[in-house]
């Protein structure tokens, strides 16, 4: 029964990891930018949420109403300035610049907010309560809500990218920037919109992680970025639903690892990631890679 429980908990954690991963995957899919500061920006969003809650006293769950637009604006601004100008130089420059950002943000948080970890809304009944299935399986309300949120975000992204006008522009810009420019749209603005979307999901990821665990300056790279990347690789590139599957596989692997020995939780996830990298480098959902 403990194993069934581990698998159920792992599946639910997978929703959180899918939330981590979709921003990373979106930026890569549209601009071929791997944002190494992805996790640290999620932590920033979490810290902003804590600040917003303390100052305005709005209910914890509604903090995203403020934090998500703020991070979307940050995303648009970062894209139009730093990311776009490094993209104009080379892909290697985007890596160096986003890695620089990651280190600067992480150490900045350390400097201003100390290394202490902090949670979001740890007193809420939503965060603490759970219900029982049978005698041994206990399911928290929060993981369930986060999983549902991840599915809603993925559905929304899918719908937006395939149906809306901006979604079509984003896909067109990802394919051929010059053609989009010739057709009268500014691809830089379109990239900005895509980045704003990605950063909105990053904000949700930061808040969700802050509620289900604790945020610290190093969480960004140690947990969020690396888990997001593992989920993307396991699931397969460029597939939003693959990202969810990747998150679920990673979550289940970690929970099974934790069942074996509590210190093996993270290691078990990485070993599954490496196994997928070796045995099925195109990921679980995509067919044989083109190149």
């Amino acid at each position: 029964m403990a194993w069934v429980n581990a698998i159920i908990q792992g599946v639910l954690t997978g929703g959180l990891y899918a939330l981590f991963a979709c921003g990373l995957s979106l930026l890569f899919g549209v601009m071929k930018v791997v944002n190494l500061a992805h996790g640290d920006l999620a932590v920033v969003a979490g810290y902003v949420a804590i600040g917003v809650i303390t100052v305005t006293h709005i209910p914890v769950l509604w903090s995203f109403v403020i934090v998500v637009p703020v991070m979307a604006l940050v995303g648009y601004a970062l894209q139009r300035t730093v990311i776009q100008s490094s993209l104009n130089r080379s892909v290697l420059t985007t890596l160096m610049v986003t890695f620089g950002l990651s280190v600067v943000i992480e150490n900045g948080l350390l400097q201003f907010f100390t290394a202490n970890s902090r949670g979001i809304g740890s007193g809420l009944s939503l965060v603490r309560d759970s219900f029982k299935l049978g005698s041994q399986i206990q399911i928290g309300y929060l993981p369930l809500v986060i999983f549902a949120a991840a599915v809603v975000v993925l559905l929304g992204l899918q719908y937006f990218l395939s149906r809306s006008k901006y979604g079509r522009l984003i896909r067109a810009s990802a394919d051929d920037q010059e053609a989009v420019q010739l057709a009268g749209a500014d691809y830089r603005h379109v990239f900005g919109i895509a980045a704003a979307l990605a950063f909105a999901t990053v904000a949700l990821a930061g808040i969700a992680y802050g509620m289900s665990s604790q945020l610290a300056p190093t969480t960004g790279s140690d947990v969020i970025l690396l888990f997001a990347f593992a989920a993307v690789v396991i699931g397969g590139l460029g597939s939003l639903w693959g990202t969810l599957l990747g998150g679920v596989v990673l979550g289940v692997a970690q929970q099974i690892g934790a069942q074996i020995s509590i210190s093996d939780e993270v290691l078990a996830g990485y070993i599954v990631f490496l196994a997928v990298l070796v045995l099925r480098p195109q990921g679980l959902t995509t067919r044989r890679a083109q190149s």
Partner: protein
Amino acid sequence: MSLVAEAATHPVSEFRVTRSRRNVAWTGAGALIVVVVLALFPYLVYSGTTTIMVQAFIVLTLASMWNLLAGYAGLVSVGQQAFVGLGAYFVLILALHGISPFAALPVAAVGCGIAALPLWWLVSRLRSGYFAIATWVLAATVMLIIEKFSSIGGGTGLPLPGLSGLSPTLLTAYTYWIGLAVTVLATLTVYLLLRGRLGLVLTAIRDDEVAARSSGARVGLARLLVFLVAGIGCGAAGAVLAISQLQVQPSAVFSISWTAEMAFATIIGGLGTIEGPIIGTAVYMLLQQTLASFNAWYLIVFGLVAIVVALFNRRGLWGLVDDRLNVRLFPVGYYLHTPSGKRRGSAGA
């Protein structure tokens, strides 16, 4: 006069190809004098200074390796701390078995080279951004595996045995010399590699990978060789780190800060030049020493400067020097001197 017209009117013997735009005999002699003076430092300065210098040697060695990876082979690795940590741990393991840490250093470096092979096999198929994060995950995985062995200290690490017999003065001096030796060897290795066939292949790949491949350049092999050498170099730097700190702690030796420092030093000094890491390390030490009392600030400032340099001045500080003075301390390119006196740079310039 165009090159073609000049070639038609002048005999071939009037054309010369040299390695540098200027004669480099004096820079070679200069480098030798610098190394000799540096070697005499333990007799000349206080041990506080040599301790700081050891730190500079470690960063310079790491930066040279990162430069080889990112600047010449296009491999932006964010996981080189895996090798720093492995180098430190190999020294610790050998020292626990009674081998002197100084004798263990070369073995640890070779061990890191061997460890680089399976790690390369795991990430070799990935490119650019995916390669970068995958190396980061690898480094995290290596650390988690090392932490599982309680005989080498588990999650908390162990002090390095085998050096308590030496007097503090002698230990500081030996540590300094081994650090200097590793740095000189690392810089020399990078220089000689790039001067040779590998340098040509890497330049060809950088300019056009498909063309290089179709001309018979063994692209995969060249990248493997670079990854291997970088693993050995970072491992040696990790071994020096273990000896200078006298203890090995997993979170410290596997810290992402090592990769941050080596990358920022290289970017600021000048990516893709051998002189760049030296200048970048000097900037790093300057910042680190002036901002030492402000905790993490030196890394924040260092990172911001690196971002600005990466965005606005790709060739870094050494690029500025090179533009003004036309000088290369470590020439790895070729220059064509034509009879009309015009000089043209070419491969690897």
